């Protein structure tokens, strides 16, 4: 089974978020592999180990190559190759445009399955994967916590409100991976060494026009002031006062 895994490089969760004149300052961002995408890589490698085939990692990013080291670590998990689509002026908040570029690249690979993370932890749209599936004309199952493959049939459990929906489909399909899906392995030293020799291809792609909405203004949510520390003679007294305040002041219980 040949599998493509979509990987998004996202600003590190510790990144300082600064807004100047209504625009988010992204100059000093350091990037990391989107955490949900790691589950997709692990799942792809497990399928490859069971079924044979090839795992190709596909990432769309700018010309900035500071991401290469982190991206290469995904090869140590057991993927076979990386293709990075390098796009001048790439932005992570254009799911429609990015899905078009990614789906065009996937068409050139001969794959039975596309895996990605449920969402990017930058813009939280949960959109690109689903859009890629539509553009490839294949079904998608999103938010999957358990995925099995048995001679051509995928069986996925996806999180829904209050429970799990089990969905089956034949391949090709696109699956977006949720956290509980698996435990991402720590690569052995020999796998890390080997990953350094695996193919890492940079491919230039044109930027494209799209109907993605443009953010006209970014802002930081109103800062929460530290509130009131509740004093009291003892624990009983403090709890009493807290409940009183939640009832009478905040009116939330």
């Amino acid at each position: 089974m040949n599998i493509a895994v979509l990987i998004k490089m996202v600003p590190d969760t510790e990144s300082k978020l600064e807004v100047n004149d209504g625009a988010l300052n992204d100059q000093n961002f350091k990037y990391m592999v989107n955490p949900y995408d790691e589950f997709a890589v692990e799942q792809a490698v497990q399928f490859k180990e069971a079924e044979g085939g090839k795992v190709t990692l596909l990432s769309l990013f700018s010309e900035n190559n500071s991401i290469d080291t982190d991206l290469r670590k995904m090869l140590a998990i057991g993927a076979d190759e990386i293709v990075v689509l390098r796009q001048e002026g790439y932005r992570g908040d254009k799911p429609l445009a990015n899905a078009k570029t990614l789906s065009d690249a996937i068409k050139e690979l001969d794959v039975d399955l596309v895996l990605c993370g449920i969402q990017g932890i930058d813009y939280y749209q949960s959109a690109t994967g689903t859009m890629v599936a539509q553009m490839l004309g294949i079904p998608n199952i999103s938010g999957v916590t358990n995925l099995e493959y048995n001679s051509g049939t995928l069986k996925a459990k996806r999180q829904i409100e209050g429970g799990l929906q089990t969905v089956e489909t034949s391949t090709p399909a696109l699956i977006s991976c949720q956290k509980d899906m698996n435990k991402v392995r720590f690569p052995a030293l020999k796998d890390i060494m080997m990953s350094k020799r695996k193919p890492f291809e940079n491919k230039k792609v044109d930027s494209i026009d799209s109907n993605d909405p443009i953010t006209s203004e970014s802002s930081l949510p109103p800062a929460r002031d530290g509130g009131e520390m509740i004093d009291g003679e003892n624990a009983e007294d403090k709890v009493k006062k807290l409940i009183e305040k939640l009832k009478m002041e905040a009116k939330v219980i």
Partner: protein
Amino acid sequence: MSNVLVIGETDGSEIKGISQQVASVAAGMGEVTGLVIGSGISEAGMKLSVAKIIMADDTSLENYDPVKYASIASHIVKEHNIETILLGATSMGKDLGPRLAAELNCGYLGDCLEAGSEGFVRPNFAGKVLAKSNPTGTIVATIRNNAYPAGEAWSGSVENYSGEIAESTLKTTDIENVGSGTVELTEAAIVVSGGRGLENAENYDSMIRPLAESMGAAAGASRAIVDAGWVPHSHQVGQTGKTVAPELYLAIGISGAIQHLGGMSGSKCIAAINKDPDAPIFKVADYGIVGDLFEILPILKSKF
């Protein structure tokens, strides 16, 4: 004023609360048509508070299927010259929304906190940044639960969908209710969350869950205890978990790491219990108690 489509969801014989919230957002935006897709949904679907409802009621539509549902919605959008399509930011909405936007080759805005003729506001970086946009042309948007009050249930005129339904290879073979009887995290008015301060899974089960239950709250967790395997990931609040915005968020034995704050700082009121007076959670809490949770929780529990 534009033509607006609201895609509603049912829950048994009721229309979901979030769908009524979406309907009330839509009411201010133009001429509204409702669409409800499913099997045996006519009673529930009628309650969607819009003037005109299209019902796609077919046994093949019993469970959510992105391929089939998107084909129906896009058919209606084209037939009725609809420019704005609104859904609730549910497990269905967040999947159907982008699939439909791709099918229509139009923009998509997920999990909006505000939607209206003045523009759309949605959270980036788990709510650490708010992004506003004023899209022109066709747009699909999902609306976050509890961002707007619900519209009243009433029946508009009903029409049955008679267009095509796309073929799909997807087949739902089971719906499993886990934790039935417990409140869904993202829909709860009160969330009681526990962290590493609880020391072990048994304490989470014997202290956090019962407190949540007696307060009618959902039980949440920090990533530290999800990673430790005390609770499943579906409980995790934060940048790599769920974003919640309840009336009351109670953080117990949680330090308040930036990734955790990302998922809950939109709560109306935050109360924290922590033994460390310098814990960062107190910087965002409206009310804080410095103390030992093992002493405080039993007392708190006895009040509900």
